[in-house]
């Protein structure tokens, strides 16, 4: 809080209080304007930074913040390599093997497609097609996720498309899928995972 001056009152007398008020206010200016003015690489020349202090890193062309141990720059999300998924019977890989990948910001994304190995209609009700395959528990989903998926009959994959849904839960079986049961010759027994994502508890 700024302390205001009234020099009328004390002009010519002891100015100690005014000096104190002034210097406190200079300190406030210093605190507020120091952020974004320091050098690069991030933090160069900043002595004893406080947590939350920001600086402009004009080499990295971004704004870094002091987290108490290091200068942290904005996270750019990058994805790890695609990993194979182990399917539970009776499900098998479709035309494109189902896979997943993990980002450095805690996202998990699926791709490829899964089909019922017996080429029968997708089983009524949800089916567990794989279990939690993550070595790190931090990648378990923080909330059950449900999302629309495409599905089709294997025998005529281009002829008929239906709507399925994926169910991602961190309880019990990990990824469960159910599909619209249209019946007849075009009953879906292949489900496409592309675009299915969930968010883990990893703090990004």
């Amino acid at each position, binding site marked *: *809080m*700024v302390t*205001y*001056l*009234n*020099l*009328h009152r004390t*002009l010519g007398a002891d100015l100690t209080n005014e000096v104190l008020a002034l210097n406190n*206010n*200079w300190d*406030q*200016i210093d*605190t*507020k304007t120091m*952020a974004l003015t320091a050098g690069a690489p991030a933090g160069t020349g900043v002595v004893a930074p406080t*947590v*939350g202090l*920001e600086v402009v890193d004009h080499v990295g062309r971004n*704004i*870094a*913040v002091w*987290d108490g141990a290091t200068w*942290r*720059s*904005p*996270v*750019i*999300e990058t994805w790890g390599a695609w990993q194979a998924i182990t399917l539970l019977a009776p499900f098998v890989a479709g035309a494109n093997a189902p896979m997943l990948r993990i980002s*450095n*910001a*805690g996202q998990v994304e699926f791709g490829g497609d899964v089909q019922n190995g017996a080429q029968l209609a997708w089983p*009524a*009700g*949800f089916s567990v097609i794989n279990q939690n395959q993550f070595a790190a528990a931090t990648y378990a989903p*923080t*909330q*059950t*996720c*449900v*999302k*629309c998926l495409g599905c089709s009959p294997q025998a005529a994959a281009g002829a008929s498309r239906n*709507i*399925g*849904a994926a*169910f991602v839960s961190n309880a019990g079986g990990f990824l469960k899928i*159910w*599909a*619209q*049961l249209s019946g007849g010759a075009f009953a879906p027994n292949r489900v496409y995972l592309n*675009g*299915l*994502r*969930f*968010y883990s508890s990893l*703090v*990004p």
Partner: protein
Amino acid sequence: MTTPNYGFFLSTDLDPMSDVNTSLNNNWTKVENVPEQGVVATLPAFDFSYPVGSRIYHTGYRSTFVLLGRNSFWGNFWRPIQARYSPWMQPGNTILVDPVNYQFGATPLQYRISNQGKFILRGSIDRVAGTYPDYGATATAINLLQTLAPDAGAGITPPMTNDFPLTPYQINTPTVNPQIAMMSIIASGTSFMRVWNPNAVVNGLFFDGVEWTFGINVA
């Protein structure tokens, strides 16, 4: 006269000390009005005392957050600078247009904002009783969620009207006959989120996968 450490506006010989209120205290007021960056463990969701443009440091996410704007239903919109994503924010029933007939599902509706300007939804909204109205029968979209238009600051609506597919389900029987519903987010000052339900079978809707880049000229 100057101090060793600070340079400020120099007084001229004609400045009487009685002008201190004009020349100095007014400047203190300006300094005081500059938002001071605080350090928090939880983002203030509905504390509207923060002026738009405030910067705050979140210890858990190790990141500065900038207050883009606020909305009386959704609360403060904090955009991260260093962290890739903000924490999941859960505004509560205030975002429901009709909280008598709709409620959050077992996975409540939440949102978060990315450091590249994306607004991301997840979770579900259920009917309190019965099923979602059948659009085929009523030809009326459901005004489900309150406007995202800001009371102050920048909005987080998309730069144009966006339509998204939603996943409907039946409470306690999620395995039966998945359909597809639609959600439209209308980018106008009086925007609201509408949903279209294809039939009267389902009584819950999931919003997972709904995300958009808000504003304009965002890379």
